[in-house]
């Protein structure tokens, strides 16, 4: 993230959406800056898709406001929607059309001027690797290609904001890698919101992460911070001839020792005071037969499970960090 005050592309304030009495999205506020890829995580039914549909104007929020590029989405929907590209969970494809026909239609819908349409079509096909299949029917393409057509549809009008709802579902590993590359590339000159279930994908492609659970934003941090703050707080050691547990507990900094198997232990320690060196020295001195010594870090997966598996998540206790 840049140090100068960044250009805000999305500013969502107190977004709320009710379905009957169910609060699908409850007072969600966040921003997206230019040049950022924001990972949007949450278990199924947490409100991800609802939030994304509200951001792209397909669904009106019950309360709150959305500003896209400083244009109010609710007051000037047409102007705001012109700068958004959206790929829903299921790509909105007309299977009876060819790729060229379909993308041509999308370019019309997004009001690309006639003179630029052919150029926009060519460049988007190149970006998404669709040049070869331009004249084929969408219905006859493989899932991976259909997904790419979906992405092409979302970026054909070079929108400021690209919203992608699970773009890599159902793709093979090579395609996933290509799409991730594409997302990273998009993140350079657009703002991207990426919803996904695949946690490593977030760490690979995103600058920032937010987790939504039961309609509420429960976690919000930059990926860089995440890496720092999730430095090791525990060690795994493996000893061929383990001593009494108390002997290890006496080492300075050790809080607790957990027995995993007869020869493997998890050692919890105070933040930043890793006893690894001490333990290694002791192990050699007392001939414990050290065979393993691994720092364990709290990764995104653990945070995710911690935050989303609790019965009621109190937003006050969640780590809220202004990026």
């Amino acid at each position: 993230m840049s140090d100068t005050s960044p250009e805000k592309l999305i500013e969502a304030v107190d977004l709320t959406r009710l379905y009957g009495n169910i609060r699908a999205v409850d007072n969600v506020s966040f921003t997206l800056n230019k040049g950022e890829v924001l990972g949007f995580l949450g278990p199924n039914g947490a409100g991800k898709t609802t939030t994304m549909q509200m951001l792209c104007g397909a669904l009106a929020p019950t309360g709150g406001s959305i500003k896209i590029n400083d244009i109010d989405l609710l007051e000037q929907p047409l102007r705001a929607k012109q700068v958004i590209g959206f790929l829903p969970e299921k790509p909105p494809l007309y299977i009876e059309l060819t790729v060229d026909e379909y993308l041509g239609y999308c370019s019309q819908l997004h009001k690309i001027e006639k003179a630029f349409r052919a150029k926009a079509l060519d460049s988007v096909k190149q970006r998404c690797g669709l040049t070869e299949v331009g004249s084929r029917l969408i219905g006859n393409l493989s899932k991976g290609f259909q997904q790419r057509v979906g992405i092409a549809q979302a970026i054909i009008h070079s929108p400021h904001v690209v919203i992608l709802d699970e773009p890599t579902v159902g793709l093979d590993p090579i395609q996933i890698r290509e799409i991730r590359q594409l997302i990273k590339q998009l993140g350079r000159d657009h703002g991207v919101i990426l919803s996904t279930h695949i946690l490593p994908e977030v760490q690979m492609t995103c600058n920032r992460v937010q987790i939504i659970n039961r309609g509420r934003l429960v976690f919000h941090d930059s990926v860089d911070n995440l890496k720092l703050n999730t430095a090791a707080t525990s060690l795994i050691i493996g000893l061929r001839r383990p001593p009494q547990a108390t002997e290890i507990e006496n080492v300075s900094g050790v809080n607790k020792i957990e027995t995993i198997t007869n020869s493997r232990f998890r050692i919890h320690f105070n933040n930043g005071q890793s006893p690894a060196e001490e333990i290694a020295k002791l192990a050699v001195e007392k001939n414990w037969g050290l065979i393993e010594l691994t720092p364990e870090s709290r990764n995104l997966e653990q945070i995710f499970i911690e935050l989303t598996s609790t019965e009621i998540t109190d937003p006050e206790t969640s780590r809220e960090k202004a990026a």
Partner: protein
Amino acid sequence: MIFAIAARELRSLFLSPLAWAVLGVLQAILAWIFLVSLEQFLLIQPRLIGLDGAPGVTDIVVTPLFSLIGILLLLVMPLMTMRLISEERRNKTLTLLLSAPVTTPHIVLGKFLAILCFILLMLVLLLMMSLSLAGGTHLDYGQIAGTALGLLLMISAFAAIGLYISCLTDHPTVAAVVTFGVLFMLWIVSWAAQTKENSADLLRWLSMMQHQESFQRGVLNSSDALYYIIVIVVFLLLSMRRLDAERLQA
């Protein structure tokens, strides 16, 4: 924008075999009826010559052809309109329209325009068949124009009703069945006019077919034309409302 949506809709319509099948079957049935009524006209023609103010070929061949196609289209229009919105909703392509910088009126009018083009094509085929008589006899062009206009207005009203019902569901077949039911009811509602004295006028006014009669005589009755236009406008507005409501309430 309306034209882009209409063009896409028409393209999809003609990429599916349905439109071709409908046009082909209709044309075959109408050609048969056309030939049969022409034959009948030729049989009774010698007797008609002696009469003053006798019905001409337009009355005996062309007008019945047009009123028959009205009934046939009562069956056919639900099939043409059922997919309009419901299939987009079912295939999740509606999101594309909702998240694009287009308004609900654009979507609804685009869809209606597409179906209107289809109707016009159908009418042109029908008119060409009728006008082929012009080579051998004298036709009452005013009457034909009136009949065609009346039919166009009525089918457009069918289409508007079908479009609205297609907005209500995400199953095209359900939309077709309900549309057919509604159109059929609007046709037979005047049957009750014979029994119930006080509401007879209202029931007769409601019936779609009742308003065809003046057109078929070649008379442009503004109250009849207005009836169809009101139906079209009301159902298009309802469709827009319905799509907006989906965005708001889901």
